[in-house]
């Protein structure tokens, strides 16, 4: 084989690699978008919506009760996992506080003890007062609160994402409820 042919074959090989690189790039775009779809939808606030917790009369004034709701986004394979619990405290009249059951430390489900007026976490011993503020233990903040509104005798909350300690900057301020 002459030198010229070798050089030409080398060039073809390089072009072939380049061609495959192009094909990989073309495929990488949809694959990447597929993999990141759960993130991009969250960025666009595509997960949050208002869900009802029940009638106002289900929640006596001055008491804190467990309510459940179905996550707004559902898939056929979700089973029972779309049913979520939250603690509803009716302060007075139409004034509520709706807490996520997830401990602000690492997300374990907190339990309400009306006798001592405390939420206690079974995992690492976090405790919160009745208004959700931190009482003791490892959590660095109070319980997560869902935004709520009262409509036609129904209480609805804005939900759809699992609340986590690092969810957003706004979530670290107690005044700005979020979930």
């Amino acid at each position, binding site marked *: 084989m002459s030198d010229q042919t070798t050089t030409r074959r080398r060039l073809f090989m390089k072009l072939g690699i380049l061609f495959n690189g192009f094909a990989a790039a073309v495929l990488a775009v949809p694959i990447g978008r597929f993999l990141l779809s759960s993130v991009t939808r969250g960025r666009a606030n595509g997960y949050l919506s208002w869900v009802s917790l029940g009638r106002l009369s289900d929640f006596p004034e001055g008491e804190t009760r467990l309510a459940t709701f179905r996550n707004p986004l559902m898939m056929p394979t979700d089973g029972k996992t779309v049913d979520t619990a939250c603690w509803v405290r009716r302060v007075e009249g139409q004034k509520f506080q709706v807490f996520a*059951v997830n401990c602000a430390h690492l997300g374990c489900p907190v339990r309400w003890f009306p006798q001592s*007026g405390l939420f*206690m*976490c*079974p995992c690492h011993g976090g405790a919160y007062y009745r208004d959700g503020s931190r009482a003791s233990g490892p959590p660095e903040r109070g319980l997560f609160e869902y935004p709520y509104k009262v409509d036609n005798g129904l209480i609805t909350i804005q939900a759809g994402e*699992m609340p*986590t300690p690092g969810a957003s900057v706004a979530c670290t301020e107690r005044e700005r409820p979020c979930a």
Partner: protein
Amino acid sequence: MRLISRIGGWFDERLQIAAPIRDAAEHPVPRNTASWWYVFGSAALVVFILQLVTGIMLALVYVPSAGEAWNSLQALNHDIALGWFIRALHGWGSNFMVAIVLIHMTQVFLFGAYKFPRELTWIVGVFLLLMTLGMAFTGQVLRFDQDAYWGLGIGASIASRVPIAGPAIVKLMLGGPIIAGATLSRFFAMHVFVIPGLLIGFVCLHLLMVLKLGINEWPMPGRLVRRATYVNEYHALTRKDGAPFVPFAVWKDLFFAAFILLAVAACAAWFGPFGPAGKPDPTIIQTVPKPDYFFLWLYALLSLLPPSMETPALLIGPVLVILGLLLLPFLSGEGEKSWKRRPIAVLTVLLLAITLGTFTHLAEYAPWSPQMNAWSGASIPDQFLKYTSAVERQGALVFQVKQCRNCHSLGENGGERGPALDTVAMRLTQDQLIRQVIQGGGNMPAYGKNLSPAETTALVAFLETLHPRGQAPARDASRDVVLGERR
């Protein structure tokens, strides 16, 4: 026999692998490496193969759907012949695999086997350890019960603390906004395709290097590793004092492998499969989630770290540990191999073992968690109620009803979050008791808003009786002077 060798010959004429296999099997190893200390690597491989086989068995029945997984595990446990045993083998196999990999790593570390020229073997081994732990965590998720569900929540809570990217990482990990069907599906893909695929590749690489570079010779105190001379010295050693791996050393590996397999089978038959625990229904919040055995130490650490240290420790700690392991062969790639002359290495291993052991032991009874049922389940022992007045008994009732027992024990019964109160009157005066109850402090919530003055008076009156008979309770000496009181 002639027929078999003719068939063998036919295949080998086409495959051409008999000679390389024979070479690999009979490669010379230093005579003193035919030791029981050198069997853990092959044992890890054998348990891994057991996990592959039992894993495929389980996949024949298991349904990776959040709605069905739990039911399919119940079917395996109860409806399918020996399904429970295969589950138990896989579960116990995972415990054994983590343990054997850790023992193997410790042995390699103490024998200086990570030094030149086996640095890359060590590094690949570090990745194998990480993948083994990854398999353990994802496997725990596939046993889709309450522990798995809330364990995922804990994983997500930790991941969410990564600065800036936290929320995105959580959604990527969960496959959506909450723990649901998509979450289980992606953990299934990780546990069954991604990590095992990588594991198989890395195991092959690891083994290839062991064959090419030769097994680490038995470390002799004073025989130092030097880059310039080591390879020649090693070959001289195998020539002078070597023996073929098969059959000279392999018989110990074979015996130990069979022993481990039987041990896994015995544990599986005796103790049975792990769970599944309660149904993964997030509306059932009466649950006390706990991680599997090999992550208990982490559970303890997360309870005991001061809150402000937690996020940095969680995010930076693992990076430092992994970096340290990866850099180890570069930091001490030469020199002494024998553990007899490496006191710091021995102390490091001891320190780590004791720390992990202590944390694991603590996590088994979790003294930091309130005992959620102590207030209703554990009555106040009689000895604390003898010779008490009406108001003190009323205080005992307040003590019980206000869930004090969830965190404080009496008569060695109750939570251990706060101190035991059997002799609290010896430590705190009346004023201090009132202040502590109303304002809280230390790690105790304030009860001021939840106790009426009468309840507080009664509770403190009861607490003041908690001192050994014949010993006076703590008293504020200045009180007599200031108030002019005489007792």
